[in-house]
């Protein structure tokens, strides 16, 4: 069904798209803002309504959008009975909450923000309810945690709001992480991340050895989200949110996400002893404890919060029982709880709004002052208590009936008693909610004199209260079809068990339990005052304090770890890094033995032996003589030269050319830097530290050497054969290394020249900052050592570099041009030309040379990247992918046949970027010298023979003075 799937996908998107609007529309006024929040919700609800008949008839609607198929992550949606129920609840409640919040929020609250968050949350919840892909579901799951964080902390000025938001995010976020692991295990067992596939493989999952870990991890996610014991503590603290948020998130939707997940996974996870005992026990404990605490809460919203905890426990327990009938009851109770609890939250919000307090002990007698609110609250609370003929009564009766037939921990009685006690507390706190708020004598010390709110605020709770009564009176008519559809989805299809939604089920065990609960509840309320005193005296574990201690402990531990390992001294990071790498390598070697050696060792000719000894000696000397920095620089360049020679010998001419030219530039760079660095490294580290570092270094070196030796003597099948075979045919060049750079792996090269260009610009920017920062003061007062050469620009050097310049440039061009077929190419050519230019700088000074420069180095980098990029993009014109190269052979007399390739244009980009970046870097460094008071010479050389000799002598004398 094409149109259906399209509708479904659009429906999921609508809240997200709509979320952009309220933030903007708030300028048009609060009514417009609320209106524009309602529009996407209403549209989505209409779409849902269009899809509903098909679902009710037992069908499903799916929408598949491929996203990352390689990871099994697709934006697949499917709508079945359960999804329909939840989507309907989310959207319907969303509309009511939008209406209610319009009147609830005051003019000072940023309402646009509120509605944006609300729609984000709504979209995330909707996503959870219709996701077909569990990875996608996880994404939406985390989105609800994030958006609820924003909503709970909406009143940013309240510390409780911020703390509550943090706690909710921590607990539900941590649970979400556990659930990700569980879902991944589940996906691995089945081999698919699609829910519709997973749901078909229940037997396989339950038989898997990973069933229990997956179950526990997924339940952790569900229990934290649905505030099950012992994770229930975050929900009451989340009550710092504005009441519309509490009504929406914390009674109707988000906290039910855990229940939804358990229902969704019911066909595959339920039915085992582990499921039964874990889920039903946790649910039952939560139900009783939540109800008990609710009885002694004075804050109206806290009372409702714990009552929600208790009811969520009830739902969890029902799903945990694992029978089909219990699942049906759970579905029915989800609907009923939504109606009465949201109405109660809204009434509590109205009371708070009108009297400016939520403290039950300061309220009472409101029934005559705000009759409409009282009527709504009484109806809803009686339903919560399970009084006929309201809907809460029915689902509670069915729950008790179901419990009465269950063997739990070896008998019927424990669960019957506990469930009855839970129901009894529930009756007591429901009665207290209305009794102590609305009835009793009218007081004269309300913080604010109350009266009924504007009709707009009453509409939403009023509608819900009507539903409470309507479902109670005509359950099969109103709730029957959706309960049937959703239940069928929960139990995984097939025949529904026999049940009937009606008020009177005859005289059965549930009736007696119910009567006991109501009577007991009334007695408890009557005894509330002394009980309350006793409760206050009893020491109880305070969840907030415990949570804060855990957080503080974690912060302390983390700080200790960070300050120990990450204290700002780079030598510590590096030693940790090296030791960790060696240890990891060691651990990796434990896995399997070394591979068999299949290669013969190559002989070592005497010359290579000499080179090896030289390298080793230079390396050793570098280490032992590193305190004299100039000398070390020479030693290091010996090593570099030997490495280049090694590349020549081992058939890598391109590498040798690159290495030798890079080394040249590097040494120049280091020399420039040494100008302003200390010339000697003082002996600071104690002997013990040097020995420790030496041991680390030797172990690291030995490990790398062993690794290299081991793989050098084993064969492998490289992918390079492809490159060798296609270099000429496909890339038009015989120098395979160059063809790989500009063609096969052109994208990599493109990235690398961009990085190099960025490095050059970074250097320029850093130098700019440095010269304008505190360092510039030190630079201006710089005194150069007295033993400096006074012949800074010697005649011989100036003349030699001038002569060399065109030759070097010619060599550079030659290397560039032949690069495609012989060793060479853009990288090497760029370096060679920059060396030729740098020689001019060295000979005549930077300032002198800079004045004669025609091109800006920044621009050169930019042009290089642009040319390379345009060459790559040019391939699009030919209908080929980015950076596909083309080439052809041409003959123009009197030349020989020659080749033109687009790759050469790309290489030109490489050339320009390399040249520009290298020159920019060295130019930037040289700027420091002039800042430090280096004289700018106007002549190309210090002693110009064309000037008269005596004038030169005179000038010399002047210098001395």
């Amino acid at each position, binding site marked *: 069904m094409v149109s259906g799937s399209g509708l479904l996908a659009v429906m999921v998107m609508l809240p997200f798209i709509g979320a952009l609007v309220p933030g903007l529309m708030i300028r048009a006024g609060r009514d417009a803002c609320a209106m524009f929040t309602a529009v996407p919700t209403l549209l989505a609800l209409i779409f849902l309504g269009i899809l509903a008949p098909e679902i009710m008839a037992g069908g499903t609607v799916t929408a598949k959008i491929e996203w990352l198929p390689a990871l099994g992550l697709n934006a697949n949606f499917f709508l079945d009975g359960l999804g329909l129920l939840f989507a309907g609840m989310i959207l319907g409640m969303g509309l009511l909450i939008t209406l209610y919040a319009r009147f609830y929020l005051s003019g000072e609250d940023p309402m646009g923000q509120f509605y944006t968050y609300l729609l984000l949350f709504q979209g995330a919840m909707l996503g959870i309810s219709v996701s077909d892909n569990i990875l996608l579901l996880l994404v939406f799951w985390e989105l609800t945690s994030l958006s609820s964080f924003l909503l709970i902390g909406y009143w940013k000025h309240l510390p409780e709001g911020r703390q509550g938001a943090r706690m909710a995010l921590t607990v539900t976020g941590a649970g979400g992480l556990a659930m990700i692991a569980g879902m991944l295990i589940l996906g691995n067992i089945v081999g698919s991340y699609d829910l519709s596939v997973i749901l078909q493989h229940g037997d396989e999952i339950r038989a898997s050895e990973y069933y229990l870990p997956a179950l526990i991890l997924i339940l952790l996610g569900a229990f934290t989200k649905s505030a099950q014991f012992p994770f229930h503590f975050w929900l009451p603290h989340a009550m710092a949110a504005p009441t519309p948020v509490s009504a929406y998130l914390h009674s109707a939707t988000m906290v039910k996400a855990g229940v939804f997940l358990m229902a969704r996974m019911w066909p595959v996870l339920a039915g085992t002893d582990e499921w039964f005992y874990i889920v039903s026990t946790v649910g039952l404990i939560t139900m009783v404890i939540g109800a008990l605490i609710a009885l002694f809460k004075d804050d109206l919203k806290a009372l409702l919060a714990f009552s929600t905890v208790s009811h969520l426990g009830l739902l969890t327990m029902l799903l945990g029982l694992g029978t089909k009938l219990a699942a049906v009851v759970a579905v029915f109770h989800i609907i009923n709880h939504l109606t009465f609890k949201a109405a109660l939250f809204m009434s509590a919000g109205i009371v708070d709004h009108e009297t400016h307090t939520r403290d039950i002990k300061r309220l009472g007698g409101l029934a005559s002052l705000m009759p409409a609110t009282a009527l709504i609250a009484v109806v809803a609370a009686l339903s919560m208590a399970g009084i006929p003929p309201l809907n809460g009564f029915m689902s509670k009766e069915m729950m008790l009936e179901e419990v009465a037939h269950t063997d739990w921990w070896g008998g019927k009685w424990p669960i019957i008693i506990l469930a009855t006690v839970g129901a009894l507390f529930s009756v007591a706190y429901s009665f207290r909610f209305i009794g102590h708020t609305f009835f009793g004598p009218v007081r004269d010390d309300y913080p604010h004199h109350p009266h009924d709110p504007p009709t707009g605020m009453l509409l939403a709770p009023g509608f819900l209260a009507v539903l409470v009564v309507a479902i109670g009176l005509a359950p099969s008519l109103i709730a029957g079809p959706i309960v049937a559809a959703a239940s069928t989805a929960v139990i995984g299809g097939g025949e529904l068990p026999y049940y009937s939604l009606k008020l009177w089920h005859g005289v059965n065990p549930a009736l007696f339990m119910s009567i006991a609960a109501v009577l007991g509840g009334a007695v408890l309320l009557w005894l509330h005052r002394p009980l309350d005193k006793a409760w206050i005296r009893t020491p109880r574990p305070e969840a907030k304090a415990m949570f804060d201690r855990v957080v503080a402990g974690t912060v302390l531990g983390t700080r200790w770890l960070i300050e120990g390992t990450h204290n*700002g*001294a780079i030598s510590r990071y590096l030693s940790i890094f090296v030791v960790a790498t060696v240890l990891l390598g060691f651990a990796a070697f434990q896995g399997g033995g070394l591979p068999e050696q299949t290669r013969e*060792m190559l002989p070592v000719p005497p010359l290579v032996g000499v080179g090896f000894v030289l390298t080793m000696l230079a390396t050793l000397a570098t280490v032992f003589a590193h305190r004299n920095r100039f000398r070390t620089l020479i030693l290091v360049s010996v090593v570099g030269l030997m490495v280049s020679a090694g590349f020549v010998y081992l058939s890598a001419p*391109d590498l040798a050319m690159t290495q030798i030219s890079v080394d040249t530039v590097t040494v120049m760079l280091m020399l420039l830097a040494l100008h302003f660095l200390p010339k000697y490294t003082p002996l600071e580290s104690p002997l013990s530290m040097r020995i420790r570092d030496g041991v680390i270094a030797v172990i690291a*070196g030995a490990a790398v050497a062993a690794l290299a030796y081991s793989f*050098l003597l084993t064969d492998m099948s490289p992918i390079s054969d492809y490159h060798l075979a296609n270099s000429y045919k496909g890339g038009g060049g015989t120098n395979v290394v160059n063809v790989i750079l500009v063609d096969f792996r052109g994208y990599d090269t493109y990235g*690398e020249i961009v990085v190099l260009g960025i*490095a050059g610009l970074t250097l320029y920017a850093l130098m700019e900052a440095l010269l304008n920062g505190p360092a510039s003061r030190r630079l201006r007062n710089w005194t150069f050592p007295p033993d400096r050469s006074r012949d800074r620009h010697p005649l011989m050097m100036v003349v030699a570099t001038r002569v060399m310049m065109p030759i070097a440039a010619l060599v550079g061009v030659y290397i560039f041009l032949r690069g495609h077929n012989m060793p060479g190419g853009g990288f090497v050519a760029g370096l060679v030309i920059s060396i030729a230019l740098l020689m001019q700088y060295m000979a005549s000074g930077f300032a002198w040379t800079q004045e004669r420069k025609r091109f800006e180095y920044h621009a050169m980098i930019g042009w290089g990247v642009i040319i390379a990029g345009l060459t790559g993009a040019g391939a699009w014109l030919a209908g080929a992918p980015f950076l596909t190269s083309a080439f052809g052979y041409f003959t123009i007399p009197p030349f020989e046949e020659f080749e033109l390739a687009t790759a050469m244009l790309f290489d030109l980009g490489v050339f320009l970027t390399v040249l520009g970046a290298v020159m920019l870097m060295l130019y930037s*460094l040289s700027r420091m010298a002039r800042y430090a008071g280096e004289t700018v010479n106007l002549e190309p050389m210090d002693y110009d023979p064309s000037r008269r000799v005596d004038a030169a002598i005179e000038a010399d004398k002047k210098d001395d003075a």
Partner: protein
Amino acid sequence: MELVVATTIGGLTAAGVYLLLRLRAFPVILGLTLLTYAVNVFLFATGRLAVGVPPVLDDAATAYSDPLPQALVLTAIVISFGMTAVLVLIALGSALESGDDRVDVTEDANGEGDA
């Protein structure tokens, strides 16, 4: 030959690591240079060693060395130059601001120095 190359890599790594753990910026940069040599040779060597068979297509050639690691190392050499340059400048900056080029200054000590 393989033993020679492996020893060279190991020696360069050891020297590089030792200098990397020194307390001044300049030896650290030199250590990084040596370590770069080691890593580049190591990467290059993953194509296995061969003498006299450069990867330049020729009808007379009987074998070629592995071109792919060479291409990778070529760009690595150029990039590491860029990184060295940035590092040198950072070292220069901190040396000019604090008067010496120590690298083991902790954040606390730094904060006091600034104040």
